[in-house]
């Protein structure tokens, strides 16, 4: 099920469409664990690799609501 909003976002890559609020991020790394594409990593802050397509799971699951759509 893809909502209209996430459909629009999916046209962009994760790297372009998502931003991590460093002040909120607790660095638990749950987003890395759930990412179906394995494109999230610490460097040492959370970063997205170039080739990820937006699915929204990390945004939904982040316990600190630290991942924001741009």
């Amino acid at each position, binding site marked *: 099920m893809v909502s209209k909003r996430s459909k629009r976002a999916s046209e962009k890559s994760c790297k372009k469409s998502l931003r991590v609020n460093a002040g909120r991020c*607790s660095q638990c*790394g749950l987003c890395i*664990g759930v990412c179906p594409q*394995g494109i999230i*990593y*610490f460097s*040492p802050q959370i970063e997205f690799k170039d080739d990820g397509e937006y699915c929204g799971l990390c945004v939904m*699951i982040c*316990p600190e*609501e630290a991942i924001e759509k741009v």
Partner: protein
Amino acid sequence: MKRYDVIVIGGGPAGSFISKLLADEGFSVLLVEKKRYPGENIHCAEGLSSASIEGILRIKDRWVSVELKGAEINSPSKGFTVLYPGVGWILDRRIFDRDLFLGAVQSGSECLTGVAATSIEEYSDGERVVRTTAGSFRSPLVVGADGVPGFVGRETGLLKPFNLKEFHQTYQCLAYTGIDDQIAHFYVGRSIAPGGYAWVFPKGDGFSNVGIGIDRSLTRRSAKVYFEQFVKNYINSFRPISCSGSAVPTTVNRRLVGEGVALVGDGGRLTDPFSGGGIAHALISSYMLYTKIKEHGICNRALKAYEKEWNRTYGRNNNWGWRAKMVLRELDDNTIERIVEFGIKNYHRKVIDEIKVYDIIKSLIREYPDLMKPGLRLLRGRYDL
């Protein structure tokens, strides 16, 4: 490119402990930790049972916030207390983690702090290359001790992405509550924490580690929302100091090794799926990997032996924990109230020195025959991941 016998990713209890053990054996070890200061920013309820780590690590007084004397189990409306002196501790993970990390360095491990691993390359010529934010290194063995993200496991194809049933989302605070006992308080019930529980663990002098873990496959609301509701309803005085959201793996993973890679602790998703406890599993898995390397040297045979022994021993226990978790997530509040009533009748303020799970389930079914179904599922049900 500098070469090490072992590169350990993650300087929590699992990573520090295995680094120390292997460095003591004379292996050259590089320990890579993302945090600048080991021990900061801990996501943990900090409970550790004494039986679980017997013979593996001696707990020092300075690591202990409070020595536990028992537990209180609460349903949404009532609760009972069981006394169990010597059952375990509430640790101070800041000091515990820091000391274990320093111990690894003292034993001869080299360390990098404030450095993250950004990729683990394919196994070739008997080695892996680890790229980090501070340069690249090569080694015949990379140990993934990197906790919830499981980056090493993901990069090497050992771990699949978590599905929603495989972890609990958590939210917790160190707070002043005025509760100053030696009792671990648990709160169970779908309305409190769907598929999980809330905890209030004593930290001494009226401070508590208060938190909640929920199964996000059962609800659309986050752990933080449930946490705020729990604190409002169940804690009279609450002055939070530092709070954070995180997660706990609550699954069963049997793939712990690949060519030139081994996973330990949360990094291999090795926790008790029922309680969510992970400290003991971290220490035990590290110790087990160490004994196999000591026996066979750094080779894939040692890694296979580690995986096999884990799955034969703790892995089997975890299957039970997974079933217990799956049964718990199906119970409604009414059933949990009745189970707690049973607890009040049979165990309240009693002193025990062992938890006999089978006996408890048996007498529970005798009292409430309608619980036969979940009881049997608990004893021998199959739940696929």
